């Protein structure tokens, strides 16, 4: 008994005496922290994205020796999609001169938005997070290119309008909206209600709480009863494959079931098998691994065993999404180096880099991603999003197929709502700092 206590005591003592909190930053590197989640209920969505983000940056290190001759220090911090751990990660990295933080969770992003301006670390929440944070005048430290959730919803409606022969044809019809009960899932609701008013259709909301993500029988029973003409989904993690499976089981016409770009991973649709054929989702990035840069990743990273990706999942949709995210990070760092003339850049430099970020079609090609994504051309100081287009993809039973051209968002509908939401946010958060950051000329 005594020796047991002794061992226990010793274990504790060693643990506590481990110099747990000293973290040393290395001067000759650009530090890119990645908040990822390979554990927890959302891991199925998180793993491919984490792999993609990690592998592209590693490839830059291996192939080019980093960016501008400076290596990248890529470090993952596991959040488990848990806000608590996300904030903990932020605290751990903020003192180490991080270039930019990718939270990869709307919940964590919402927590970090107020901290970003105080700690002077920019946040890149690529096509997620708070839609209103696109307003650079109110949120100088937050960036969410290429498109906001509201842009996404408006693109879905453009597609629906195409299929129905005009959005005015929606009058009197029902549109179902199934969403994850969280800040993320609720984000598009204001615009959806606005559309319902404008086009005269009825909205049926089906919310899925995190704990019954993998069940959803009640929601789909209700769908069966209501028979909405179109179903739109804002799902994440285990919710996506379940919803696709349930839709198929309930005989919902799959080609009328549209997911946002976060509901379109290969695993999401694959679960339903042949039944899932026809399921639609928006997408921001190219499909497959047939891009020179992705081949480089395979050559320098995957084949050398420096990646955690399973070989057959290389080049899947969410993997490419992660790569896309890292391209934005890398380009922002490159841009920051150009503006400041420094090799090792910090948060404040990269914020300026992000504000003047452009990735033209030629640049995409130069990077080894011809036609991989829409050119990033509209990010400015006051518009941190740019409202870039996306396209519709369809599941053919085995893989995703691009079925539409680039769909432009309805900027005229989205922008006023964004302005209103940003104003509202600032008003409710008394003492919200005024923008003092100077605006750089676009390079």
């Amino acid at each position, binding site marked *: 008994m005594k020796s047991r206590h002794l061992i226990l005591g010793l274990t504790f003592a060693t643990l506590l005496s481990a110099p747990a909190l*000293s973290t040393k930053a290395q001067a000759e590197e650009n530090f890119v922290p990645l908040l990822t989640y390979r554990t927890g209920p959302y891991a199925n969505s998180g793993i491919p994205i984490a792999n993609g983000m990690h592998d592209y940056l590693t490839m830059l290190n291996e192939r080019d020796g980093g960016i501008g001759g400076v290596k990248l220090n890529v470090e993952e911090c596991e959040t488990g999609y848990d806000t608590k751990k996300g904030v903990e990660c932020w605290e*751990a990295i903020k003192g180490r001169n991080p270039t930019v933080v990718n939270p990869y969770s709307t919940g964590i992003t919402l927590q970090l938005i107020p901290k970003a301006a105080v700690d002077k670390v920019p946040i890149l929440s690529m096509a997620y997070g708070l839609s209103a944070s696109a307003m650079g005048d109110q949120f100088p430290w937050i960036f969410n290119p290429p498109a906001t959730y509201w842009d996404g919803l408006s693109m879905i409606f453009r597609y629906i309008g195409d299929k129905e022969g005009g959005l005015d044809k929606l009058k009197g019809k029902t549109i179902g909206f199934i969403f994850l009960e969280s800040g993320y899932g609720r984000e598009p609701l204001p615009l959806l209600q606005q559309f319902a008013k404008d086009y005269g259709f009825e909205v049926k909301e089906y919310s899925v709480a995190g704990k019954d993500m993998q069940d959803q029988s009640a929601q789909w029973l209700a769908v069966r009863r209501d028979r909405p003409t179109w179903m739109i989904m804002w799902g994440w993690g285990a919710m996506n494959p379940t919803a696709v499976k349930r839709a198929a089981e309930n005989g919902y016409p799959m080609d009328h079931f549209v997911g946002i770009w976060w509901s379109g991973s290969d695993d999401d649709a694959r679960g339903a098998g042949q039944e899932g054929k026809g399921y639609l989702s928006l997408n921001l990035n190219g499909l497959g691994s047939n891009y020179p840069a992705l081949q480089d990743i395979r050559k320098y990273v995957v084949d050398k065993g420096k990646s955690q990706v399973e070989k057959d999942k290389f080049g899947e949709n969410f993997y490419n999404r992660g790569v896309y995210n890292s391209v934005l990070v890398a380009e922002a760092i490159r841009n920051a180096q150009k503006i400041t003339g420094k090799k090792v850049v910090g948060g404040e430099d990269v914020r300026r880099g992000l504000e003047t970020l452009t990735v033209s079609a030629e640049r995409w090609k130069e990077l080894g991603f011809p036609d991989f994504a829409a050119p990033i051309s509209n990010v400015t100081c006051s518009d941190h999003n740019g409202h870039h287009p996306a396209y519709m993809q369809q599941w053919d039973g085995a893989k995703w197929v691009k079925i539409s051209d680039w769909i432009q968002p309805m900027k005229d509908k989205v922008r006023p709502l964004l302005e209103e939401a940003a104003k509202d946010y600032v008003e409710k958060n008394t003492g919200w700092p005024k923008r003092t950051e100077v605006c750089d000329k676009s390079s």
Partner: protein
Amino acid sequence: MLYREAGQFKTSYGSDQAIFPILQDRVGIAVILLVAYLLPLTKNDFLLNAMMIPFLVFSLAAIGLNIMTGYAGLLSLGTGAFMGVGAYACYKLTTYFPNVNIIIWIVASGFFAALVGAVFGLPSLRIKGFYLAVATLAAQFFLEWCFIRIPWLYNYNVSAAIEVPTRTLFAIPITGPTATAETRYLIVLTILVVMTWMASNLVHGRIGRMWMSVRDMDIAAELMGIRLLPTKLLAFAVSSFYCGVAGAIMVFLWYGGAESTVFSINQSFFVLFMVIIGGLGSLLGSYLGAALIFMLPIILRSVPPQLGIPVHADTVEHITFMIVGALIVFLLIVEPNGLARLWQIGKQKLRVWPFPY
């Protein structure tokens, strides 16, 4: 050798019944408090923000649950929801009365939680044990549902989240993003010290004895003239008060904003584990449990990078899960009464050391 009471004579009833009868204990407490209050001098944001503030918040919640489960013997799975009531109440109060100091509202929000807790405590007269746990589970689900479905609670926020505005005390921001970790830590610490002191007085006094007698055998307690319903309801109310304040602190002084998912059933289990590991019916246990369950994973996570072992972040996470899980099982086998009991045994041994009999 150092820790013994020889020569310390108790000459009054007061000193005999003191909570810390031995001088060394009193010195120890004073030293701990001093260290705790001097901690902000380290200027280590990670230590304060990611470790100490959450630890103190969970300690407070664990004290709350311990009052109900440890002292009054009422098993509750609604802690997360009661914390939520506190947080949402504080949010509504400060939006309606922005000029009243936020600390007042943080404490006042506890009363709302207490009220809600007492309402859900009503069935406790008729149902006991696991059945009561199920009834509190209903409270958990119902309140969580409210946090989502009643947009008034989060001021019709688009993201259904509550965002903490900046509030000041003597012109120093204490909530919101501009508040420094040091100020927030000091406020949390002060609230916790005061509330622990109150809880200690409660459980050592008449009310605490009533709770414990109900816990040990309610029929005997009733025969001795203790009215069961008011006693149990009081336990519910006081416990929910503590949880409510903990919830308000959590959102206002730690998170700086929250979604309803923060107050999910997982939170309830988290606090319940702390209470069980720390020791049922012990205030010290609440602290030890919170430290073990919350801080140990953080410390474990930081070990491999410190030692320079190249492991992936998710592997560390998995290993941490396993180690903490194994440790919990191990601790419960070695000492089913929790860490507080271990500490007590240690103290007994120290008293007679080096000549045990």
